[in-house]
């Protein structure tokens, strides 16, 4: 038997995007970020890195809040109309990259991960806006773009509350090669 193509994930066409699809895409972006923070928190709990794990767990709640706000907007404007965009159409828009996590990372390093992720999301919306034609979609993406900037400020404010970084914060203290 040969392998059969059953379905193919479509790519995103920002030029022809409707407002409904744009909101659904934004929901998926928040969902992806929420799930990634959840995964990173689980990794760090397992590897006994509680401060960073707690911060990532907090980020799970924040991303879920953003997602539910967008879902509420979607429900009001489009009710139960079917969702036509898929999670497979996006990759790591606001979700931190997997290689950002480190065993024994500090809370400050965890905040730096969140900051880079917000910057990455802002860059995404800026690049996408260049192709968006629909004025309603433009408005939504401009709002999201501004929100990403606000989030960056919030993360920076949190970082300012932390004690200054220690001299060994950037030393990787994971297991080194050990004779067997």
């Amino acid at each position: 038997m040969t392998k059969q193509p059953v379905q193919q994930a479509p790519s995103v066409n920002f030029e022809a995007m409707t407002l409904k699809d744009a909101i659904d895409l934004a929901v998926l972006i928040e969902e992806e970020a929420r799930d990634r923070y959840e995964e990173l928190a689980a990794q760090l709990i397992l590897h006994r890195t509680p401060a960073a794990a707690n911060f990532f767990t907090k980020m799970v709640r924040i991303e879920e809040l953003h997602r539910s706000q967008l879902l509420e907007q979607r429900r009001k404007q489009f009710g139960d109309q079917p969702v036509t965009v898929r999670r497979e159409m996006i990759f790591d828009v606001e979700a931190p990259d997997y290689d950002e996590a480190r065993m024994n990372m500090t809370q400050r390093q965890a905040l730096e991960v969140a900051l880079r992720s917000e910057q990455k999301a802002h860059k995404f919306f800026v690049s996408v806006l260049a192709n968006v034609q629909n004025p309603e979609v433009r408005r939504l993406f401009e709002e999201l773009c501004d929100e990403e900037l606000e989030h960056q400020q919030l993360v920076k404010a949190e970082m300012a509350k932390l004690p200054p970084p220690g001299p060994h914060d950037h030393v990787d203290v994971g297991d080194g090669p050990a004779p067997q």
Partner: protein
Amino acid sequence: MTAPPLQAKDYKSELKPIWCPGCGDFGVLQGLYRALASIGRPPHEVAFISGIGCSSRIPGYTTAYGFNTVHGRSLPIAQGVKLSNPELLVVVAGGDGDGFSIGGGHVPHAVRRNMDLTYLVMDNQVYGLTKGQLSPTSPKGLETVTSPLGSLEDPINPLLYMLAYGCGFVAQATPADMPGMAALIEDAIRYPGFSFVNIQSPCVTFGEEDQQLKAHKTKLKPLESLGHDPTDQLAAMDLARAYGTELYTGVFYKNPKPPPTYEALVKLRQAEQAKKARPRDRVLDAYLQK
């Protein structure tokens, strides 16, 4: 009513990966879920077969059938699975040590037998699970617990190795390019025959600094951007020689005319033999020289 399309999360099991935070295998797993969702075969039609090692834990992290087998024996077991149920989509996963050292003897035979399997090797150039010994793809000069003064051996070149054995689909990917990697895995699974993807998946704990994903992001070179023709086997071999010095990603070689798979030939043989089969009441004649 038609079933809703499958999503990446449908392939994700409840078991949480215990890889080191920052490990390249997290990205590989995510890319694999997405490739499977795009192909759309439900989890009960998919089987993951692996050997032993960090990356060989993959079957447990999926909702598909899975068999975390013995060290280096994933390919023979996967062939048995495929032969007994050719309808299953069988994906074989493992590391460079499992595939090219302990299981190295099985690779050429799996390639020449050409069953419809996809072999994903998470190549991290080190034995990570056992705390950082030299592996078959470790670069020359690498200092590890088994080579404290630096390795004296040249590494195996997995790409050239598979091409030389006549593999019909050979590609290389890195989790530093997630969309590209997911697309390559999907392409490999869709190829009707034995397909191989070497995934440069760095070991965050024992790997070299210049082999981590951040470094991959700056040095990866998609073969497509070089104008490489993936149907040109000799050009593929020429590019594959740069393994270890250049990080080429994409399809090195894809046979434009895939030959029939082993299981297809077996089916044909069975049909031919069925025509010649004696009636039940004359089966014993074969032993009586009638």
